[in-house]
């Protein structure tokens, strides 16, 4: 662990796969920028891999003041031990006050290992990060300008704000899609710092035999309108309603975990805590009860329409347009009404 270091930078781990930057790291730079401005410190991006320096410039366009490039042929493939060792050493050298990781499969594997080695605190799956003070009543001390790490807890039934005032860096992970992508500023420049890293064989305990990545069947994050169906839709055949309404609106179909588990639609369409987090202009929730895990993935939508025959369904708490009725009649009515307009 490192000591409280008020001059420390705000760092973001930048995820890349075979030379391609993943969205998540760039999204986090947006928030890191805000945090850095508030604290009056620079934003550093940590880029790890083999032959990755060429990506550094682009990272500056998204808000980084500095890019730390950790290059080594042995870092060509992600491995927990080698990456965490490289990052841990960098933390000790520069003592950042904050470090944020994406809560991706890679980030959730890596961040805890780094935090454990650094003996620092880590908060998983934050839905918001900001700066604030914390008072310790017992000792009558106020810790100023800490990272407030806000996350749903207890299956999403409460929102907890977590802080770490003594064993830094303050570390957190954030899911993809939770923070909006910052605007690209092509004229923005930053410092590129190439660091030597030594990787020993001890840090490479894995042999990667085979890997298969598949493209998602749908890009929910990029959709302006999402029509999502839940268990209430009733059957795969009936899910036609969701596809038809989506087609009429030029929207993407989404779903709850219950609908996915029932086999109505592919898992790629799942919205929520364990699915995709979305923030479209319009989200239409059809036959969805509005469990907190689902709401976590869609409540930031600009407009929400909910169609449910149970007036007490929790989804109505977040809906702008509440339609209490049977989806089997309401959805066809909507399709008709939309088609009549265009």
């Amino acid at each position, binding site marked *: 662990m490192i000591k409280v270091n008020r001059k420390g930078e705000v760092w973001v781990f930048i995820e890349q796969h075979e030379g391609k930057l993943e969205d998540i790291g760039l999204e986090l730079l947006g928030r890191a920028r805000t945090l850095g401005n508030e604290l009056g410190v620079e934003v550093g991006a940590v880029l790890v891999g083999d032959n990755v320096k060429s990506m550094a410039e682009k990272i500056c366009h998204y808000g980084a003041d500095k890019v730390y490039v950790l290059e080594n042929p042995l870092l060509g493939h992600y491995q927990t031990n080698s990456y965490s060792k490289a990052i841990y050493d960098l933390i000790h050298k520069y003592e950042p006050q904050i470090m944020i990781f994406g809560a991706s499969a890679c980030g959730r594997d890596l961040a805890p290992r780094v*935090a454990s080695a650094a003996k620092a605190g880590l908060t998983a799956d934050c839905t918001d990060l900001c700066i604030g003070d914390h008072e310790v009543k017992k000792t009558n001390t106020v810790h100023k300008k800490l990272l407030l790490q806000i996350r749903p807890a207890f299956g999403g039934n409460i929102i907890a704000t977590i802080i770490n005032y003594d064993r830094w860096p303050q570390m957190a992970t954030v899911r993809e899609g939770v923070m909006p992508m910052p605007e690209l500023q092509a004229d923005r420049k930053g410092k590129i710092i190439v660091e030597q890293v030594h990787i020993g064989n001890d840090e490479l305990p*894995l042999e990667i035999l085979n890997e298969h990545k598949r493209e998602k069947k749908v890009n929910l994050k990029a959709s302006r309108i999402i029509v999502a169906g839940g268990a209430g839709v009733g059957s795969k055949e009936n899910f036609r309603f969701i596809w038809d309404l989506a087609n009429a609106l030029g929207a993407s179909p989404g779903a709850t975990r219950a609908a996915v588990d029932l086999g109505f639609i592919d898992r790629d369409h799942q919205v929520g805590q364990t699915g995709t987090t979305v923030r479209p202009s319009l989200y239409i929730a059809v036959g969805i009860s509005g469990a907190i895990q689902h709401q976590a993935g869609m409540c930031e939508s600009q407009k929400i329409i909910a169609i449910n025959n149970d007036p007490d369904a929790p989804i109505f708490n977040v809906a702008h347009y509440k339609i209490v009725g049977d989806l089997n009649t309401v959805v066809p009515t909507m399709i008709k009404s939309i088609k009549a307009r265009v």
Partner: protein
Amino acid sequence: MTPKTGNLQNKTANPNGLVLKPLNKEVKLAYNCVVLIKQVPDTKKITGEAMNDDGTVNRGALPAIFNPEDLNALELALDIKDQYGGAVTVITMGLPSASDILRQSLYRGADEAILVTDRRCAASDTLATSYILSAAVKKLDYDIVLCGRQAIDGDTAQVGPQLAEKLGIPQVTYVEELLSLDGESMTARRNIGNGWQEVRCEMPLLVTVIDEANEPRVASARKLMKNKNALTPVEVEVSARQGNPDASAEKIAELVKRKTQELQENGLLIKQWDLDDIEADLTWCGRDGSPTKVHRIQSVVLSAKDSKFVEPTEQGVADMIHELISDKTIS
């Protein structure tokens, strides 16, 4: 299953990772598995009654269950034992009531169960928890440490990787299928969200297991009959007190001693360790050992600012669509 050597012998370190040593002549065929399990409140069953007025959760109002993915981890360990031999030990850190999931593990086929319980564990965050668990695991002889990917009360998925770091062993997270064990390494398939990856990793190692990995077995009737009276020392004490509310302290101590002895003789005393037993350094345990602290807890009341009811009629729907077109939500 025959051990696979593949064509590993002649490789050197490469970007894909260190190449494993060639196999020993004597292939180890039995593996000691240690499974870390947790008792959690059933967060799926949260209703209005389980929420306190201040927005916190009333844990007492929720049923306590075996964390679902820990059951998948236990199943994988039992599977390894069935296929290759060896022993399965389960450990939980928790309140005395967590003895229950230890018994459930014995019913399913675990060979030994250990409760790590100590007041000084209270308020441990994931870092302190993984430290305490590592101190317990270090007392054991192990080849493979298994954890569920995450617990449903926190969903952090941090304890597995942190425990691996504390033990100084590699981790293979999100395991969906174990492909083979060859005495020195494990080959497994990981689910990496947008695809999968097959990796081979030297032992000892830690794996975290996801729910797609298997279908956890149910309790065996025979093992249930055999172990249903198994108790942890702390449970013996509690039941002695409850059964004899008016008895003196000496009397209780006497009863406890007799009962534990009897259980011990019948192989029904579940092992129990406190922080001294595992030689944990208290600076890394409990509240003091936890860098993360709670700043604030709020209950979730998400509400839309301007919301309205729309009649489920043609007119109602048409008006809504019209509004959405005029504010350019729909083009």
